[in-house]
C-alpha cells in the first residue's frame, strides 16, 4: 500500500515532468523492465487526461450556467415558443412542408400549362364576324356589325344589317362563298358590292364543320358576273407563301397582306392555314389569294390574344364543299373558273379586278 502510494506520486511527477533527469531515466528503466509499472503509467495517464477533460468541461459548464442566469428565458420563450394561435403555429411548424407543397403546386401548374402550350395554341379562337351586341368595337372578332344606314341603297329601304362579314364569288352565275359562322342564324342575307349595290342571297349549302357556307344570289336585279378573275388552288400552299385578302372590316374594302405562317390552323387544325395577315372583325369569309391570283383559302378567324395569328380554311376544303353539294339542289351548276386573270399583275391591279367579286355579307337577325 505504502509502495503503491509512492509509486503513484512518482508516476504523477513523471507525467507532469517534475522528475529530475536522473530520476526520470531511472524511472523509465523501471518502467521498461516492469510491465506492471508500465500499465500503471498508461492507466494513470488516461485517468489524468479524463480528469483534465472533466475539469475543463465542468468549468465551461459553470461559466455557461453563469451566462444562462443572465438571460430572461421566460421572455424569450414567450417570443420564440409556439404561438398560441393554431394557424401561426401550424405555419411555423410546417413552414418547410408548406413551402414544398406550394412549390409542387406551382411546378405542376407549370408542367400542365407547358403541356397545353405545346399541344395547343394559347388563347382561344375568335370567329371573325362582326356583332355589335357582343363585341362592339372589339378587334378580335371578325364579323362586323353593320349599323350604318348610309351604305344601304335608300330605294331598297333596307334596315341596317346587324352582322357583317365578307364573301366572294366562286362562280360567274352567282354563287358566293363565306363562312358558316357569318350567316348562321340569319333571317335574311344581303350581299353588298363595292359600288354600294345590295343583292339578296340565300344559303344553298352550309358546312359548320369546316365553317363554309355557299350562298346563291337570288335577286331580280342580278343577272351574272363577268368571268371570275381567280381560280381555286388545288394543291397545298407552303409556309412562306405571300398571301393577301380583301375584306370588309369596315364599310369599304380593306386589303390585308402577309404570308402563310403554318400549314395547320388553330390547335393544329389541319383544315386551316395559319396566316400572318392583319385581319379584323368583318374579315371573316374573305378570299385569301396568293401572288398568282389563286384562292388558297378563306379567312375564318383569329387567335383572340393581342397579335394573335389569323386562320384561313384551306382551298382544298372549299373545293370539297363545292363538290359535295348534290347537283339536284342547285338550279345552276357551280362552275369554278379555270382561267386566272390576276397572274402577273401588280397588287393594285389585282385588287382592282378582285373587288367586284368580293362582297360585304350583311346578316339580318331579329
Amino acid at each position: 500500500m505504502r509502495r503503491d502510494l509512492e509509486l503513484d506520486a512518482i508516476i504523477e511527477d513523471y507525467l507532469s515532468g517534475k522528475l529530475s533527469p536522473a530520476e526520470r531515466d531511472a524511472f523509465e528503466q523501471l518502467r521498461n523492465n516492469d510491465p506492471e509499472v508500465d500499465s500503471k503509467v498508461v492507466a494513470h495517464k488516461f485517468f489524468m487526461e479524463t480528469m483534465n477533460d472533466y475539469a475543463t468541461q465542468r468549468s465551461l459548464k459553470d461559466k455557461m450556467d453563469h451566462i444562462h442566469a443572465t438571460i430572461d428565458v421566460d421572455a424569450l420563450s414567450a417570443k420564440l415558443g409556439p404561438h398560441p394561435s393554431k394557424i401561426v403555429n401550424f405555419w411555423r411548424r410546417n413552414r418547410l412542408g408548406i413551402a414544398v407543397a406550394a412549390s409542387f403546386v406551382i411546378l405542376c401548374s407549370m408542367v400542365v400549362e407547358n403541356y397545353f402550350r405545346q399541344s395547343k395554341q394559347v388563347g382561344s379562337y375568335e370567329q371573325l364576324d362582326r356583332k355589335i351586341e357582343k363585341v362592339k368595337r372589339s378587334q378580335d372578332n371578325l364579323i362586323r356589325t353593320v349599323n350604318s344606314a348610309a351604305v344601304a341603297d335608300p330605294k331598297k329601304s333596307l334596315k341596317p344589317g346587324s352582322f357583317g362579314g365578307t364573301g366572294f364569288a366562286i362562280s360567274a352565275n352567282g354563287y358566293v362563298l363565306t363562312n358558316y359562322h357569318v350567316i348562321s342564324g340569319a333571317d335574311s342575307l344581303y350581299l353588298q358590292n363595292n359600288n354600294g349595290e345590295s343583292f339578296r342571297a340565300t344559303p344553298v349549302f352550309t358546312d359548320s364543320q369546316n365553317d363554309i357556307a355557299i350562298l346563291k344570289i337570288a335577286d331580280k336585279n342580278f343577272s351574272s358576273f363577268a368571268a371570275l378573275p381567280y381560280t381555286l388552288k388545288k394543291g397545298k400552299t407552303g409556309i412562306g407563301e405571300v398571301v393577301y385578302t380583301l375584306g370588309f372590316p369596315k364599310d369599304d374594302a380593306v386589303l390585308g397582306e402577309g404570308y402563310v405562317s403554318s400549314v395547320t390552323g388553330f390547335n393544329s387544325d389541319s383544315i386551316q392555314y395559319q396566316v400572318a395577315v392583319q385581319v379584323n372583325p368583318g374579315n371573316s369569309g374573305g378570299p385569301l389569294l396568293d401572288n398568282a391570283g389563286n384562292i388558297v383559302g378563306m379567312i375564318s378567324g383569329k387567335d383572340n390574344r393581342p397579335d394573335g395569328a389569323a386562320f384561313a380554311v384551306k382551298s382544298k376544303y372549299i373545293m370539297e364543299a363545292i363538290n359535295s353539294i348534290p347537283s339536284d339542289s342547285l338550279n345552276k351548276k357551280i362552275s369554278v373558273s379555270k382561267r386566272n386573270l390576276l397572274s402577273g399583275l401588280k397588287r393594285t391591279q389585282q385588287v382592282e379586278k378582285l373587288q367586284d367579286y368580293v362582297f360585304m355579307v350583311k346578316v339580318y337577325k331579329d
Partner: protein
Amino acid sequence: MNKALNSSLPTDREVVLGILNNSDETLNKLYLGYFPMILQFILNNNGDEDDAKDVFQESVIVLYNKIKSGDFELSSKLKTYIYSVCRRIWLKRLAQNHKKTTNISDYEDVLVVDDDLEKHDEQDQRLMKMNEALEGLGEPCKTIIQDFYLNNLSMQDISEKFGYTNTDNAKTQKYKCLQRLKKIFFNS
C-alpha cells in the same frame, strides 16, 4: 430570430479565436447570440427551456472540443454548425424518450455532424464515469480531489483548509484519495 438578436452575433472568426484563447467574453457573446435560435428550435419541437439549455450547452462543448482539437474549419457558417449539432442531439433525445421524431421543423440548413457527435459521446461517457466515481468517493476525498484537480488549489491551500499539520500529510491524503478514485473509475 429577431434582428436585434441577429445583429449581436459575434463573427465566426472572433468565436474561433476566442475559444482558442479561452476568452470568457467570447463565450458570453456566443451564448447570448446563439441560445435564442436553439431555444426557438427546441420549444417548437416538443421541448422546454431546460431541454434547450442542456442541448445548447452540449453543442457549445462539442464546438469547443472541435476547435481546441484543431480540426474546425470555417467551411460552413458557425450558426449552421451549432444548429446542426443541436438538432442531432435533440433528435437523439427524442428518440430515447420515444417521442415522435418525425416532423422536426427546421429553421436553418443542416450539416452532417455525426462524426463530431460520436467523438463527443465517447468523451461524454468517460466524463460521466469520472463524475460517478467522484460522487462515489465520499468526503473528504471528493473535496480534496476537486480542490486540487478542478479548482486548481495548491497543496498548501488544501492542507490549511482541511487543517493538516503539514503539506506532506495532505499530499499523502490526496494520493490515497486519488488511488481510491482510480479504483472506482477503472472498476466501474
